[in-house]
Structure formats: C-alpha cells, structure tokens
C-alpha cells in the first residue's frame, strides 16, 4: 500500500504538469482550432530565460514571474506578428499549424545558439531529495510544490474562464467568432490573451519540470507530447478534460513505472489512451462537434 501511494503521488505530481501543458494546448485549440506545436518550445525558452536571470542573482520569485511574462509575451507576439497577418492573407488552418511548428523550430535553434546544447542543471528552490513524511507517506518537497502548482494553475484558469467577463468573452469568441465580432468584442485582443495565458501555463509546467530533468533546448519535447496526448485523451476542446487526461496519464505512468518496469512507463500510458479513444473517439470529456448546415 505504501509503495502504491508513493508511485501514485509521484505520478500525480508529473500528471499535474502534463495537465498544465494540456490546458494550454486545449485553450488554443478551442479558440482557434490551431494545434500549437511551439507550446513546448515556448516553455523551454521561458525556462532558459529564467536560468539566465538566476545567473544575475535575481531572487527566484521575481525570476519566476518574469519567466512567465516572457513566455506570454513571446506567444502574444507570435499571434500578433505572424498569425494575424497570415490570417489576413487567408492562410488555411493547416498553414497556421505549420507556422507554429516553424516557431518551435526557430526557438529550438535560438536556444541552442544562445545557451548551447549541453544539458545544464536548473537550480530550483524546492528540492527533489528533501522528503517530508505526511501520515506515513514520504513525499518530496518538489512533488508537493508541483502538485500545488498544477492545482493552482488549473483553479486560476477555471476562475478566469468561468467567472470573469474576460473569460465570458473568451468562451464567446471561441464558439462563434463572427458573432463576437458583430457584438463589438475585440476578438483579436481576446485571442491574444488566450495565447498568452496558454503560454503562461506552459512556462509554469516547464519551470517545475526543469529540476526533474536537465535543461537542454529539447527538454520540453517529451512533456509536450505527453501533454498533447493528455489533451486528446480528455477531449481536445474541453478544459476539464485536459486536467483529467493529464492526471490519468501521469498516474498511469507512475504506477506502470513502479510496478512493471521503468521502460514500460510510456508504453502503458499510451495503451490506455488507445483503449479510451477506441471507445470514445471524442475523448473522455470532449463533445462531438455537431455542425448545423
């Protein structure tokens, strides 16, 4: 039982990060139907930016906030400077998706050029080896922080989307762009905020993943793919689905890695996804698109 809880909690910690990545992907997909392939790379750019700032002896709290801002501004800049002009020239959806792929490759290239290809340790104030004993279960400080970050990020996003007027406009814009425009809602600004928010969640995930992995320009690739899988598992257009999908994926990985073999960890997680999608092709909480003609 103790072993189970141990694996469960480490899975939960990783899963909450997958959930954050998946939330960012879902948010963009819901509002623009674009799969953001640069999501992971924006997050790693944010983490490298944080690394540089920490080298300048800036306190970590400030570094954290500035890294989040950096990621958001990057995504919003991409939206305004590249996607909007592309949409004006009637770029297809696929074309826009390829643009995000291009952005990802550009960021990878730039981070390799600036910070080098060598994996670097990421000094993080929460330690992986400092362990707390909560009711007989050993849990590392980093795991607690990670779960808290995942929870906090999800709650904040929920409050933003469901409880504020901005969130109402975001939901309206993602459902019916033209109607939102005719009501005078500044849809471009709203979509830019969606991009910024999504990137912010991605950078949070990136910063908490950095101490678990070593920092190199491609370290977000695997978490990005997992987040992507989690988003699809939960139903790409559903935000709660992204959270559920991320947690399931993380926990499945944790248990499989613990009980079966570390090598089998990824396999089992994706077997689960295949099984779920065979039964529910629209994802766990996704809704089938019903289009009225």
């Amino acid at each position, binding site marked *: 039982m103790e072993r189970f809880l141990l694996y469960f909690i480490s899975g939960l910690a990783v899963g909450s990060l997958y959930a954050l990545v998946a939330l960012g992907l879902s948010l963009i997909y819901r509002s623009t139907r674009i799969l953001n392939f640069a999501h992971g790379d924006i997050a790693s750019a944010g983490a490298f930016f944080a690394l540089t700032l920490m080298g300048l002896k800036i306190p970590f709290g400030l570094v954290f906030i500035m890294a989040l801002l950096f990621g958001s501004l990057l995504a919003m800049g991409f939206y305004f400077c590249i996607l909007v002009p592309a949409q004006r020239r*009637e770029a297809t959806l696929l074309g826009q998706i390829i643009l995000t792929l291009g952005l990802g490759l550009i960021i990878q290239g730039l981070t390799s050029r600036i910070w080098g290809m060598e994996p670097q340790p990421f000094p993080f104030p929460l330690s992986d080896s400092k362990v707390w004993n909560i009711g007989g279960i050993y849990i590392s400080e980093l795991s607690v922080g990670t779960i808290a970050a995942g929870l906090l990020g999800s709650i904040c996003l929920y409050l933003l989307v469901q409880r504020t*007027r901005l969130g109402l*406009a975001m939901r309206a814009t993602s*459902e019916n762009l*033209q109607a939102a*425009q*005719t*009501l*005078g809602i500044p*849809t471009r600004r709203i979509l830019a905020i969606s991009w910024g928010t999504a990137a912010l969640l991605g950078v949070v995930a990136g910063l908490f993943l950095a101490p678990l992995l070593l920092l190199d320009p491609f370290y977000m690739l695997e978490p990005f793919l997992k987040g992507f899988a989690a988003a699809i598992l939960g139903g790409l257009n559903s935000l709660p689905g992204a959270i559920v999908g991320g947690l399931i994926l993380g926990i499945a990985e944790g248990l499989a890695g613990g009980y079966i073999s570390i090598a089998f960890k990824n396999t089992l997680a994706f077997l689960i996804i295949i099984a779920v999608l065979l039964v529910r092709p629209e994802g766990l909480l996704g809704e089938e698109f019903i289009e009225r003609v």
Partner: protein
Amino acid sequence: MTPLLKISSIETLYFDRIYALHGISLEVKEREIFAILGPNGAGKTTLLKTIAGLIKDQPKKGTIEFRGRMIQRLPPEKISSLGIVYVPEDRGLFRELTVEENLDLGLWGRRDEAVKEDLEFVHGLFPILRDRRKQQAETLSGGEQQMLAIARAMLRRPHLLMLDEPSLGLAPKVARHVIDALLQISRKGTTLLVVEQNAKLALRIAHYGYILEAGRIVLEGTPKELEENEDVQELYLGMGEQSLSPKGWRLYKKRRRW
C-alpha cells in the same frame, strides 16, 4: 434630412470574380423600417454582410456612408462600435452559453447608467427570456432564439439594426410576436433594415421597400406602390391570377418589366 445610411453603387465579389452585388445604391432614413425583398440568391444577405463588414475586403467598389462617415471595408468590430448591429440568418447566438451570458455579451463595452433600463426594455419585449435566463441558448426553441438574438442586438443600442430573415422557420404566431417587437423597437427610435422572403409580413411593417434580384435593385417604393405593382403581386404576393388562361393554365411565362 440626410439619410442615416447611404450606399452608393457598391459591388461585392466572391472569390474576386463572382459578382454578388452589381452596383447597388440605396438610402436608409432615420427612424424608419426598410425592407429588402428578393428571391434566393439575389444578394440580400450579401448586402447586409457587406454593410456589416463581414466580407473581407468588400465592397470592391462604391461607398457606404453611415452618419456622415465612410465605413466601407472597415473591420466588423469597428462597424459594430459605430452603431450598426447585424443579426444573421442563423441568429449568431453563443449556443453553449446561457441566455443571461448571451445578453451580457450584448452589453460588452457599455458602462453607462442606462444598462438596467435597456435590460428592462428587452425583457419587456420578450418576457420569456427572463424565465429562460439560466438555460443554454441551444436549448431554446427557434422563436426564442430569434427573440434572444434581437434582444442581444438591442442591448448594443444600435442606430441601425439589420435583421436577416427574422421570421425564417417560425410559426406564424411566433413570427407575429417577433414582428410586433420590431415595430416597438422602431417606435423607440431605432432604424431597421430587414431582409425578408415573407413579402406580406415585410410590407406590412415597412415604410419603404427595395426589391433585389440578381444583385441589382429592380424596384423600390413605399409598400403601397410595391403592392400595386403587377409583377410584385404575381411573384411575391402570389396574386397573379390575370396571367392564367380561362382553364387555369399558364400559357406563357410573363415577362417582367424590370
């Protein structure tokens, strides 16, 4: 009096080569109801969408002047903020949001005192919306959806309200309710531009009508003038008995005189 909306020979093309509007000119005067009639594919919806700025980079030629300002080819948000609100044929509701949230979005950007008064007004027009306020828009009936769309548009305090087929798919009784509401809205001082296929209904409330065919305005006049026109009678009001032979057969296809 200068017209509220003045359209001068606009041409709208789809895909840069298919003409939808062939040089249309029309004027809409303040505080009146204008009806645009015409068969399918005449360009009625295209005309409204062109005015609302929803067709990108169109009109290709011509000008649209609204309250003394040129508005052709402006982005739709801008045109909306100048006081033109367009209710599309599919009603343009946010189907996953509740009635209340839909109305709230109609109030976007308004911070004035009159918000409450306007909400009272639209709830007075359509009391059913108050009972349905927690319901998702997609669960409403067709008539209720149309009412919600009109109510939401009114919350923007438009100078010009453009409606695309407000009676489409509604039971006659519901359609009458909607039309009555339009009369009340008009009396309150909003100018209406209504596209309708139901010519009888439209001519009953309009102050002036235009008949659009194949992208051109072929006839215009007051409802009385239009109703007296033989071609309108035959083609739009279904009264063309004169052109039948004594046995009730139609011997030839009558040529329209426009």
